């Protein structure tokens, strides 16, 4: 019994830390509220879609910035998509970097774009790792017979 309680406490603390540290914002909370017994995997499913989207878009962005002549419109379109999906899941830091990134695109600032790309890759890998940890901890609680309360 102690084991479950401890796991649950760790989960609650970890969850809270992601918000305190600004990795996640209220939108993630909104998504958690949409999960219930009839849709127990909703958050994981949405976040998985976000990971797929982000992987694809970061790939496209890297390619686009590697071209001899940079198509800023196309670049901006990709960043806009990434900005949208990160906002939709509450990945606050990724979202914020995307806003700067769009400004760099608008200014046609190559240096700025390259820097923003590095930043967004960094923030994305951080939040991805944290979310994967969060989901793993939830699975541990569930496996131990506990419940993941919202």
């Amino acid at each position: 019994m102690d084991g479950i309680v401890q796991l649950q406490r760790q989960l609650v603390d970890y969850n809270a830390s992601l918000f305190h540290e600004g990795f996640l914002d209220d939108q993630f909370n909104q998504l958690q509220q949409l999960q219930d017994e009839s849709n127990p995997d909703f958050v994981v499913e949405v976040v998985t879609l976000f990971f797929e989207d982000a992987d694809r878009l970061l790939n496209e962005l890297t390619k686009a910035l590697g071209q001899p002549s940079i198509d800023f419109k196309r670049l901006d379109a990709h960043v806009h998509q990434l900005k949208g999906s990160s906002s939709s899941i509450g990945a606050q830091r990724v979202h914020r970097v995307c806003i700067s990134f769009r400004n760099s695109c608008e200014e046609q600032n190559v240096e700025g774009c390259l820097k923003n790309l590095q930043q967004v890759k960094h923030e994305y890998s951080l939040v991805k790792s944290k979310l994967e940890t969060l989901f793993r901890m939830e699975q541990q609680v569930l496996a131990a017979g506990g419940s993941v309360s919202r």
Partner: protein
Amino acid sequence: MAAAGNLLSTEMGAGKLHVLAVDDSHVDRKVIERLLKISSCKVTVVESGSRALQYLGLDGDKSSIGFDGVKVNLIMTDYSMPGMTGYELLKRIKESSVFREIPVVVMSSENILTRIDSCLEEGAEEFLLKPVKLSDVKRVTDFIMRGEGKNGTRSLKRSRSDDCTPSLTAAFTSVSHPRDLSSSPPPSIFHSKKSRSSID
């Protein structure tokens, strides 16, 4: 206790609102679908304006006269989509004699006043800022349900053609939260046809 609200919902019968949601983002499609299902709607989700038109039977292949198939009570569309934007989709729907009465709500992550105005001018019911929340969806669907139920027909139809929207204005102002548009974290801003009627 059969209050007016309950009567209206039962007037709709077993029928829930059927909402057609249009968004090119996979993430957003998943979220809006869930939001709508939680709000007790039947949902069809498509990924583009052209798919939406196809679904409605408006893709020019067949005449829409006598097209019996799809009954959609509300369309919620993203604004920025490749190919056909939400604005262009809105225009096509409002140009259709069969479908122009369907309320259309436009969603966008960008709070651009000219964009909002042009959508409202073109006949959008509302403009929602993304990320869309459950409270936004519930408010919209509740409103549509009341509008649908009231006279058994779409009372929105009459209000729009009269271009006199005091009832809509009242409904919107009673639920909208006045927000300072210049404040940085974008809350869900509720733009209604009230602004449109004041332009006219």
